[in-house]
């Protein structure tokens, strides 16, 4: 039984005088205890909205419709009332945001912002809370923590602020931590510090982590399971190593081919995905990626591609996937993929053969079975 089970999550924004936007369009994934799960995608793929929906932080009413389920230990987070949600937030689920300066209250000292959480969820007050807060800051690598408690957010550097934010998030030892682009605003050397810190926290405390990022490099170093999102749907899910070794969905392949790698040499051309994230087909009309896809076939348009499940813990949403053995653009020194991975690999020439293995509704259950 997974810790968090998100099923067919959809978020629709309706605004007066504007087009209805389905920001999240049937996202399903699960997170086990102590697992690091990545949600990867470009701008507009719905990764941040997904996390806000799970946290219950989307504005209620006001043209926002949230459908589907997000079960945390059997409690559907999308259906609980505000009071319960407030208790769950911080205690069971905590979130780290991209911009640490705007997520911290600028006129309240760091210490108070930490002890506030401790008081609310763990009932700690006075000296006990302050001691615990200092310990937390120390744990996230903030030097001289007792003095730091009295300082204000603007007195800390970007990296230190993000550490303080992480300290607040882990103050109540939540079972699930959601990090939304936690290092995007930071420099690489600081990013490395923060990622290392997050890794340590997950390893030591057994907290599950949902890592939301656009950076496949970050994913490669951190996540156990990776969900690739495009236009509000998960298009591919796999364990970390198989995903990078043999991506199946053309979008994943395209993303990997787009990234200049530190270990590739000068002059190697990248193989970008044509078009832009704006060229999207509504999922109801077929595969959203079809307008930009180099492997498009007639079968891609008409109805949404179903989720295909291979028996290697991998799902993808494509009728004409990339074969596991096919040369991966951008990757220089990868040996040929092991032939044992997918039984359906041989039938790659005929997309129909793949489509026949389609398991439409709940692939997740099958996977855990």
């Amino acid at each position, binding site marked *: 039984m997974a810790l968090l089970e998100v099923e067919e999550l959809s978020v629709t924004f309706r605004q007066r005088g504007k087009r209805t936007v389905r920001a999240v369009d049937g996202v399903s994934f699960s997170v086990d205890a102590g697992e690091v799960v990545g949600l990867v995608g470009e701008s507009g793929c719905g990764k941040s909205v997904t996390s806000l929906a799970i946290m219950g932080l989307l504005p209620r009413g006001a043209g926002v419709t949230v459908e589907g389920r997000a079960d945390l230990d059997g409690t559907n987070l999308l259906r609980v009332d505000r009071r319960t949600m407030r208790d769950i937030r911080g205690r069971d689920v905590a979130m780290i945001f991209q911009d640490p300066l705007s997520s911290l209250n600028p006129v309240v000292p760091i210490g108070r912002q930490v002890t506030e959480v401790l008081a609310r969820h763990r009932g700690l007050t006075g000296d006990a809370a302050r001691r615990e807060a200092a310990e937390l800051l120390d744990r996230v690598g903030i*030097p001289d923590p007792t003095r730091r408690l009295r300082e204000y957010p603007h007195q800390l550097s970007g990296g230190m602020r993000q550490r303080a934010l992480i300290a607040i998030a882990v103050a109540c030892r939540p079972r699930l931590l959601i990090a939304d682009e936690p290092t995007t605003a930071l*420099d*690489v050397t600081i990013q490395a*510090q923060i990622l290392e810190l997050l890794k340590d926290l997950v390893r030591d405390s057994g907290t599950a982590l949902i890592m939301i990022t656009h950076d496949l490099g970050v994913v*490669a170093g951190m996540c156990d399971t990776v969900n690739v999102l495009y236009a509000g749907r998960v298009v591919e899910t796999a364990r970390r190593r198989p995903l990078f070794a043999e991506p199946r969905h053309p979008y994943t392949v395209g993303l990997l081919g787009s990234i200049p790698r530190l270990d590739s*040499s000068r002059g190697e051309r990248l193989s970008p*995905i044509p078009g832009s994230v704006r060229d999207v087909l509504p999922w109801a009309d077929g595969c959203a990626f079809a307008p930009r896809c180099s492997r498009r076939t007639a079968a891609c348009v008409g109805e949404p591609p179903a989720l295909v499940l291979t028996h290697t813990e991998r799902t993808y949403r494509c009728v004409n996937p990339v074969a596991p053995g096919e040369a991966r653009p951008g990757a220089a020194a990868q040996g040929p993929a092991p032939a044992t991975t997918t039984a359906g690999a041989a039938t790659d020439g005929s997309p129909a053969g793949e489509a026949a293995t389609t398991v439409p509704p709940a692939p997740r259950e099958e996977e855990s079975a």
Partner: protein
Amino acid sequence: MTREATVTDDTTAPAAERGDNLVEVRDLKVHFPITRGILFDRVVGHVKAVDGVDLTIPRGRTYGLVGESGCGKSTLGRAILQLIRPTSGTVNFDGVELTSLPANRMRAMRRRMQMIFQDPMSSLDPRQNVESILVEGLQAHGIGADRAARRELITRTLDAVGLPKWALSRYPHEFSGGQRQRIGIARALVLGPELIVADEPVSALDVSIQAQVINLLDELQDELGLTYLVIAHDLAVVRHISDVVGVMYLGALVEEAPSDRLYAEPLHPYTRALMSAVPVPDPEVEDRRERILLSGDLPSPANPPAGCRFHTRCPWAQPTRCAEERPVLRPVGTSRVACHWAEQIASGELRPHSVSTQVVRPKDEGDAPHAVSAPSEPGSFV
């Protein structure tokens, strides 16, 4: 007009006659005064954004400038283009000394050196359509006899950057991020420049779009023989696109090496740390590699540490020389590096130790950043 004509003549001369280096920067400094006071401004200090940089950009090549935010790389790029007046030092562009050029001659020179900006939205005037954006530079330099001739030039440029012709009558907000960056590139290209300074040309774009723009820049260089100065924080991007890479830290170059060489054997401790911090989208690599985690943050450029500027965070810092003597950029093999101990570090004679995280003060408080280099067991971070 006659002056411009001579400039044009100049550019058509064969490359060999004019030397192989398009840009030569010597001891360039840009210091911004920090002022206080209500009625009368009182200078209370200087932010040394660029503090003594020497660099040479060979004609037709790409020089990559990499560093973290606040290292002065953008200021350096703008100072080379004279968009910010340098405090001291010289910038020699194809035999012409730019720092002493009168304003109107400098303005005429701008045709030969153009800039591409990070944020394609904010660098395009939202009230201009694409045609007017592209025509503006042509008008400023009197290029193109009439409207038709300009139109012809613009259409060709649009084609070169991969934008459709219907883009001409459109406004920036009607395009996607990648297309906007193409407009920005077209604006730079339409004047037929020799040098293009690209300041974080892809960092505001989506991953899949970044590759399109990087490839476009590569293709344009092949076709037009452009010289690039690419400024970015992403080492992977810089390394991919550049022939020579300069690494900046706190207003100065700490290492300069051919792109492949820099990757194969980084000599400066900061380059090593930077290299080890860049995530690689490959779990095999990620799991194998060892990270050099730097402690603490960048010291304030208003009050840089004495001696080597990196010594407060350097895992290889030595008790002698590092804190007192500022290392100069000196040749080591095919690289240039500003480290007293580069050879010893490269040979493994010196081992890294961990540096305790320093207290970071906000910029205006100006405490001298200090750090205690105390040896402790490796991996004791956090």
